[in-house]
């Protein structure tokens, strides 16, 4: 990063209520430069509210949100500090794509040439003169990303950027997010699907019902969820299951010939099956998907939610 330019986003003790509903409850986390931070939680978990608070749009009841050490509302050319995609459909349908970016650029003293640059960058150059009402959701999403890129800002926020993109577009945005982080920017990407962040995020902040559930690196999260699980492939699946279970392991059946075994070292599994003459075709250390890790993490929060729904 440019010297002296603090590109850290900090949320400290933020609390936000809308009437009787608590949207964000004592939330604190930090988004560091140079990496993609995933911001994950089920719909209604408070992600969008938190992003609006960071951008000075909603005022928190308690706590503060700082971008580069300053309150967003004190920035004079905010688009040069923080680029944000909140809602890609928030464009007047009668306005041309280029004009939508033009007024934003003008409001922050960004030269008009930059508008064409970002249109090129997101692949919207051919649609620059089309009116927003005639653009597909995927194109609107690209327009919103172009808007976030306008100020070449060191901090970037994207709320559900994958929405409406085709598989090509999804691959493209993952690459874009990683390269933005590699340039030293702080990148915060929200999603309600952990799987979308697989291979993209370096760090995840997980929230549920407005509360922080996890703030951890992706590697640590996956490792914790994987624990000591083994994946075993054998044709004698049911026989192997009872054998290993009787020997004290926890066993769950996978599809057809696979078993997931925990609580037993790999050598002992192979030895036991060998003694019984069961062929072992494969033993691998199981790596949990980010999604599994997430499910495990949010199970409590979701249970709580289910109870709350029943009670009401």
């Amino acid at each position, binding site marked *: 990063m440019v010297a002296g*330019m603090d590109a850290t986003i900090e949320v400290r003790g933020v609390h936000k209520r809308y009437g009787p509903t608590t949207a964000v409850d004592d939330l604190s986390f930090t988004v560091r430069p140079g990496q993609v931070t995933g911001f994950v939680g089920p719909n209604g978990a408070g992600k969008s509210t938190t992003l609006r608070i960071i951008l000075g*749009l909603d005022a928190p009841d308690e706590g503060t949100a700082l971008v580069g050490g300053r309150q967003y509302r004190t920035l004079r050319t905010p688009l040069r*500090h923080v680029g944000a995609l909140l809602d890609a459909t928030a464009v007047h349908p009668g306005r041309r794509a280029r004009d939508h970016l033009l007024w934003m650029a003008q409001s922050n003293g960004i030269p008009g040439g930059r508008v064409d640059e970002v249109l090129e960058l997101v692949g919207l150059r051919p649609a620059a003169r089309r009116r927003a009402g005639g653009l597909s959701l995927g194109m609107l999403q690209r327009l919103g990303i172009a808007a976030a890129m306008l100020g070449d*800002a060191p901090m970037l926020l994207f709320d559900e950027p994958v929405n409406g993109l085709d598989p090509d577009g999804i691959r493209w945005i993952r690459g874009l997010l990683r390269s933005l982080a590699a340039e030293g920017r702080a990148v915060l990407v929200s999603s309600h699907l952990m799987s979308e962040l697989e291979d993209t995020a370096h760090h995840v902040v997980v929230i549920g019902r407005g509360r922080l559930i996890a703030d951890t690196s992706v590697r640590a999260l996956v490792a914790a969820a994987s624990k000591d699980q083994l994946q075993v492939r054998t044709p004698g699946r049911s026989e192997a299951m009872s054998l290993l279970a009787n020997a004290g392991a926890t066993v769950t059946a996978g599809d057809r010939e696979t078993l997931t075994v925990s609580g037993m070292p790999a050598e002992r599994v192979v030895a036991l099956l060998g003694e019984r003459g069961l062929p072992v075709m494969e033993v691998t250390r199981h790596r949990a998907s980010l999604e599994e890790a997430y499910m495990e993490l949010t199970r409590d929060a979701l249970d709580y939610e289910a109870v709350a729904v029943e009670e009401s």
Partner: protein
Amino acid sequence: MPTTTDPETDRRAEAGTHDRFGRLVLAEWTKLRTVPRWIMTLAAVVGLMALAALIDTSDQGGDVAEGEPLQEPGFTDNFHFVHQPLTGDGTIVAHVVSQEDSHEWAKAGLMVKARLEVGAPYAAVLVTPDHGVRMQWGFEHDVAGSENGAAPRWLRLTRSGDVVTGYESADARNWQQVGEVDLDDLPSTVEVGLFVASPDAVVIKRQYGSNFVNETPTRGEAVFDNVSVEADGSSPSPADGEWSDYDSADEPDFGGSSTESDGVFTVMGSGDIAEVRRPFGDDLVELSLSGAAVGMLAAAALGALFMTAEFKRGMIRTTFAASPGRGRVLAAKAIVLGGATFAAGLVASVIAFLVSEATLRHTSRDPGLPELSLANLTVLRAVVGTAVLIALVAVLSLAVATIVRHTALAIPLVVLPLLVPSLVEGGLPLSVENWLTRLTPAAGFAVQQTITRYDTAIAPLVGLGVLAAYVAVALAVATLLLRRRDA
């Protein structure tokens, strides 16, 4: 590596609040001009007003052709004058013995008049039945003397060069100056003498939708004695110059007359010497601009949409993320919207005025049709004022839309108070109606008046000021709410 966050560039970009606000205005202008429907709404302001002018005045042309007399805005100069020439400086003194109470503003007194023709410069000191002693000149200037100075009263008028001074006295010994005026370029010989005038009496009956107006000429009468005219350098003497009668009453049956016997003058006359008050005449300029009531609807719609479009799609978040100063955003919007609607309103009202002038001239056979031009300041005030009116309505709508956040709520909230006074016209007593006009935003329409009528509620610029006050309050409330509410 981000390049534009280079501290030097950033400092330049952040230099000066003036630049910052300029950028905001530019951005809002880009927003306005890039939505074709909004530009079409601006064009609709022009189209609707021109069309309304065409319809209203071709309608009016028929009435005019049927013989309704139309006069040029200006003055009436009708009275009976018993006069004689005075060369050089001098003084005229008379005692008004009595004055008939023919009208509260009946006039009896002394006058210096440059020439015996309608509209010639004059200055007069006079008594009235209900409004005391006055000194008047130039048709629009009126200075009050003593309030209880009805007849009998002594009056004196002196001419010294171009300066005419009026005095009054109860006893011809203690004189009080009433007023003094410098009449430019008085000829060396002027006409001085006694005059009497008495305006038309007006009775108005109102029933829903129509006014029954009765205008009856009145004849005033006053008795003068101790009349003396004295040219400077000669000794005071009873008036022995040749007295002549001049009468400029416009009602043939109500001409004036005078009799004199032993220095006692009895003078009768009717009419008025004043700014024209054609209390029932049509204000042709106002009529030509009547389309503003329709054009304003388009302006109000644009004003509301310019803001509600932001709320409807959450665009307001993009706007406030780009420019966190919410009061400034509203100010920039108001300036852009006000400027654009003023420009459209100005084009509209100039076209409307020219179209209706041409239409009137084409359809009317009235030889007395006034020559109205944009070079006339009163006309210009009405035409430019109409553009200001339309801009103010648009900005009012912007502010109200900011407060209520729904187009369908904002437009009626703005438009109904503007239309109500004209909708209930004739259905309420005149005084109630006038107060309604003074207190609602509809007061702004007063700026289109070019003559004073019997139903004139408020002065043109004061009316515009009332509307502007509504706009200011609405903008203040809107700013407060924008700052307090989450976006």
